[in-house]
């Protein structure tokens, strides 16, 4: 078991493992996203109050849920990078930031597009919206901080500290609708126990959440591979890979 973990931390081993599994992850993500999006757009009945505007949840909720999950992943990778100084954890940390930031942007933009017809405005300085915006700034902070360093290892360690400190914002985003009076609706789908949503609406939503999560897993794996290639450039295994790359 521990031997396998040690092998996993080896850049060439992880690169080849990701090379084998990423396409399958991508295909599974596309199938689930197609199921979720088509189910949500075509087969789910309109909401009795929000009518067809509710269909925005099939992109908004997965993006918001994934934006929080990815930040948690980034902080965990940061903790591993700080404690065990593992290069692979540093790569996961810096690879997760742009994917997480993009999902946060999707959550904010689709939320605004939902807010306009439902609330009459694109934006309010509500606890949920503001804390999600802070999440975006934290992601952008990690991206900017990493780019500010010439030494990638020192940059990744600085980012790890920012990611670990910033993780305090994750429960604030999650529970903001319960802790403060909020215009944003409370949890209906992701709450523990029985979700307050009809099954024919919920099933495509779960598929869309799973599809978005797998797609982000695919994107992170590809970015981790790039980070490993960049850091290990000039080594024997990267040169061998260059020769074996199609079209070369």
């Amino acid at each position: 078991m521990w031997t396998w973990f040690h092998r996993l931390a080896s850049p060439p081993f992880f690169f080849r493992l990701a090379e084998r599994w990423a396409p399958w992850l991508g295909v599974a993500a596309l199938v689930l996203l197609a199921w979720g999006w088509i189910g949500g757009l075509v087969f789910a009945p309109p909401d009795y109050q929000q009518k067809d505007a509710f269909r925005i949840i099939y992109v908004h909720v997965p993006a918001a849920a994934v934006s929080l999950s990815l930040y948690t992943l980034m902080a965990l990778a940061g903790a591993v990078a700080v404690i065990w100084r593992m290069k692979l954890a540093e790569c996961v940390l810096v690879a997760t930031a742009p994917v997480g930031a993009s999902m946060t942007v999707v959550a904010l933009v689709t939320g605004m597009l939902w807010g306009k017809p439902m609330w009459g405005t694109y934006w309010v300085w509500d606890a949920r919206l503001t804390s999600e915006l802070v999440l975006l700034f934290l992601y952008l902070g990690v991206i900017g901080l990493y780019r500010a360093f010439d030494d990638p290892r020192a940059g990744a360690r600085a980012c790890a500290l920012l990611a670990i400190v910033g993780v305090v914002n994750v429960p604030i985003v999650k529970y903001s609708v319960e802790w403060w009076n909020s215009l944003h609706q409370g949890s209906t789908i992701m709450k523990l126990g029985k979700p307050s949503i009809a099954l024919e609406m919920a099933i495509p939503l779960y598929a869309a959440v799973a599809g978005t999560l797998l797609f982000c897993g695919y994107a992170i794996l590809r970015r981790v591979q790039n980070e490993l290639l960049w850091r290990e450039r000039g080594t024997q295994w990267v040169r061998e890979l260059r020769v074996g790359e199609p079209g070369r």
Partner: protein
Amino acid sequence: MSGYAPYVWGSFGFTAMVLAWNWWAPRSRRRRILEAELDE
């Protein structure tokens, strides 16, 4: 879409664009890294 089509399609279209960028950006960077490796 009971009058909400621009909001619904706008949301799905924007999300699709972001997902496409997440697919394309790592592929493009990988190509650039390997090309730089080839030039060295």
